[in-house]
């Protein structure tokens, strides 16, 4: 499943609670690289809910279901993966992140698509407020 396909999907809770909101963003956690949580936009006057990926009931092509719309236990700080610049560990820029593919069952990141090519998760070092840092060593270079 692609990040771009998940953004904007409605999030529902089972029972009569109905629609919680729509997916605003996915927060990524490292080691192993996976989707750690989902930020759910609940409307203009309510702050976003942050629900751990493991607390989601199911992820389908048209909607997500959450067991609860309440905030989960502490989750990693949110840094936007899509759109972030890509920087090698040697300090060279390698474009920006266009999208990422992940397994909807486990949340594991399977590939990161950048303007310079595709990156496998073993190339990823860290995602922070400045960039996604990737290894330059072995494997196919990103550019």
């Amino acid at each position: 499943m692609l990040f771009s396909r998940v953004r904007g999907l409605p999030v529902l809770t089972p029972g009569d609670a109905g629609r919680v909101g729509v997916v605003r963003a996915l927060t990524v956690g490292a080691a192993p690289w996976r989707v750690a949580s989902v930020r759910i936009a609940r409307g203009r006057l309510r702050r976003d809910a942050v629900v751990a990926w493991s607390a989601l009931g199911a992820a389908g092509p048209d909607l997500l279901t959450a067991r609860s719309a309440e905030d989960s236990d502490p989750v990693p700080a949110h840094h936007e993966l899509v759109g972030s610049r890509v920087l090698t560990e040697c300090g060279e820029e390698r474009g920006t992140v266009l999208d990422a593919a992940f397994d909807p069952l486990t949340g594991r990141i399977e590939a990161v698509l950048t303007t310079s090519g595709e990156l496998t998760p073993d190339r990823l070092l860290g995602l922070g407020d400045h960039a996604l840092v990737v290894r330059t060593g072995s494997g196919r270079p990103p550019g």
Partner: protein
Amino acid sequence: MNELTAVRSLATLPVVTLGGDAVAHVKDTVFDPSARGIASFTLTGRTLLSGPLPRDLPWPAVHCLGRDAVMVRDAGALCDLPLSVVRRDTVRGRLLGAQVLTDEGEAVGTVLDVLVEGGTSGRLVAFRLAARRDLVHGSRHRRHGVYVPRGEVSGVSGRTLVIPAHATTYVTDDVPAFTARVGARHGRGAAR
């Protein structure tokens, strides 16, 4: 061989951890007293209006010096220092603007920029001079494109470099070409 970087282009470069966070920006590059390599970087905060930080980044704590960022392992790489010490080190170790003399005492120009090896080296490779007419004839543009390899500098004393009167200089607009010429010359020297 690592890519050559002009020290002037390092100013404002972000200092980024391997976790992807920018922790500071480079303000000045400080060289060791013998001008053989980078000793440390002084830093500013991350926002436009933030002033100098009472911290510096010693070269051994640098993971890699790249074209787009100075990479460090984590934020612990930065060392706390009083601002007065940072300023003193900057003045002592800043080679930009230093005067260049021949060993006969004749002023031949000032240092406009310094070329260093990036990556994990940080080695000083050459100086770019604003040369006087005595050293290089021609237009102002031509005289500002004069490079002196570090190996030609016979001494560094404070903010003064001393080069032999017969020092080899290169006039070029093209740093990669200059690197190739210096590399070829060193290669021939090593082969002898």
